């Protein structure tokens, strides 16, 4: 309500860092919509729900960064950071922004660089599940169990840095968990599930300790503290469950893909071939056994003869990322 008076960054509305976040979030959403529009204009399929999802992520981030959230100061802070660090990254990530960027960019230096970056070792480390979890939840423990929180409330710059870290670490963690975009290497469901369990547990324990004792150097009222801690606990649950659903859908469709060639071959070879080709043309359905239709996908997906203007995408790297790698999930 009158959060602006008590929220970190004393007696001000959103600070510069937060304003930057708002503008960036909205700009990124617009860029996504433009890129998806470009794909559709040239005849590629790109599901509409991904546009909606990404836009929701952008709007959510912008809203929470604005600092206009209900509740007491601690509850308000908690809801804000729940949205920025946990809830908003999920719709961003399931919209597969990296895949979209790789497909929307024209062949050339920018796309090559983006691909090199996505495949680079540092990014590989950043989205290594346990490390991403440590950066994310470890950061939370530092924030709430050291003097950082109290210090941050009086230093707008530090507050901006913490805010940005939460968003970035949340994005990296969600990205590592969902594993929808092409990166250096993939991790099994077991590794990601175990990481999710550990991260979720660390988050839940932190929430319960906050219920009992406030961050050092702060004096929130017990009622405020309790509601903030419960927001953290149950909000974390909701996001954990959503992440688990994304993992589960990936596992389930991978299983379906592994079974599919056998049943298809057994059933009706001609009909299925037709289906494969049409699907490759529509590009909507990634459930097809990718290896068998790689060339079909590549030639139709990019709708450009290999000789013309830079040839097939990702020619720079030896692999045509979205299709020649292991079949990807839905």
């Amino acid at each position, binding site marked *: 309500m009158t959060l602006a008076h008590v929220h970190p960054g004393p007696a001000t509305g959103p600070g510069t860092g937060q304003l930057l976040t708002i503008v960036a979030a909205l700009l990124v959403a617009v860029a996504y919509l433009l890129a998806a529009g470009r794909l559709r204009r040239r005849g590629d399929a790109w599901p509409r729900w991904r546009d909606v999802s990404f836009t929701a992520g952008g709007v959510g981030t912008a809203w929470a960064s604005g600092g206009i959230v209900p509740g007491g100061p601690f509850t308000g802070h908690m809801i804000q950071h729940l949205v920025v660090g946990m809830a908003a990254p999920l719709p961003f990530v399931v919209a597969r922004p990296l895949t979209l960027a790789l497909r929307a960019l024209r062949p050339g230096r920018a796309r090559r660089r983006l691909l090199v970056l996505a495949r680079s070792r540092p990014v590989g480390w950043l989205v290594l599940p346990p490390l991403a979890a440590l950066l994310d939840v470890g950061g939370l423990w530092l924030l709430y169990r050291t003097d950082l929180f109290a210090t941050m409330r009086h230093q707008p710059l530090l507050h901006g840095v913490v805010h940005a870290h939460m968003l970035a670490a949340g994005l990296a963690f969600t990205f590592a968990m969902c594993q929808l975009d092409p990166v250096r290497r993939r991790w*099994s*469901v*077991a590794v990601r*599930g175990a990481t*999710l*369990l550990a991260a*979720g*547990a*660390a*988050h*839940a*324990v932190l929430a*319960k*300790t906050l*219920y*009992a004792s406030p961050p050092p150097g702060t004096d929130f009222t017990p009622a405020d503290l*309790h509601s903030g*801690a*419960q927001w953290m*606990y149950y909000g974390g*649950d909701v996001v*954990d*469950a959503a992440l*688990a*659903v994304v993992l*589960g*859908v990936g*596992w*389930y469709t*991978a*299983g*379906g893909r*592994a*079974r599919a060639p*056998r049943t298809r071959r057994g059933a009706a070879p001609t009909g299925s071939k037709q289906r494969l080709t049409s699907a490759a043309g529509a590009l909507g359905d990634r459930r097809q056994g990718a290896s068998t239709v790689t060339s079909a996908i590549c030639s139709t997906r990019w709708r450009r003869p290999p000789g013309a203007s830079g040839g097939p995408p990702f020619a720079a790297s030896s692999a045509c990322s979205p299709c020649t790698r292991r079949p990807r999930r839905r």
Partner: protein
Amino acid sequence: MSDSVRSDTAPGAGSASRRSMAVCAVIGAAVMASVDEIVFHQILGWHHFYDRSTSGVGLLSDGLLHTAELLALVAGFFLYADLRRRRALASAHAWSGFFLGLGAFQLFDGIVDHKLLRLHQIRYGVDVTPYDWAWNIAGLVLLLIGVILALRAARRGGAGPAS
């Protein structure tokens, strides 16, 4: 996990029924945990979110267990869907597994969480003994139902995949 999906499209009756039972036990435990969370924590408000008498280890185990329940519920759903897709669901074994899961979690919660770790009590401000007895006997009954169903399923000759 995906390996097992790939390898056995036509699994033996034994492995299918064992798997059905295990998957449904996971679902059962997670369902009981959700019932506990929803009914006793949220609706009745009997359990306390955190009653401050908990040790650090208790808190850690509570966090782990709570997250594990949540993930088990989701994972169990997908594993179940996979069994159905492969027509490998042995329903008699599945039901026994479900009740075994319900009962096992109820007993575990009543004995380990409430009594050994003392995370929270069933109800505050009253003599908790009858509540504890009711809680644990209910768990035992559910577990026994599971055992009886398992015995019956086994007696029907392993009752292969029949969904």
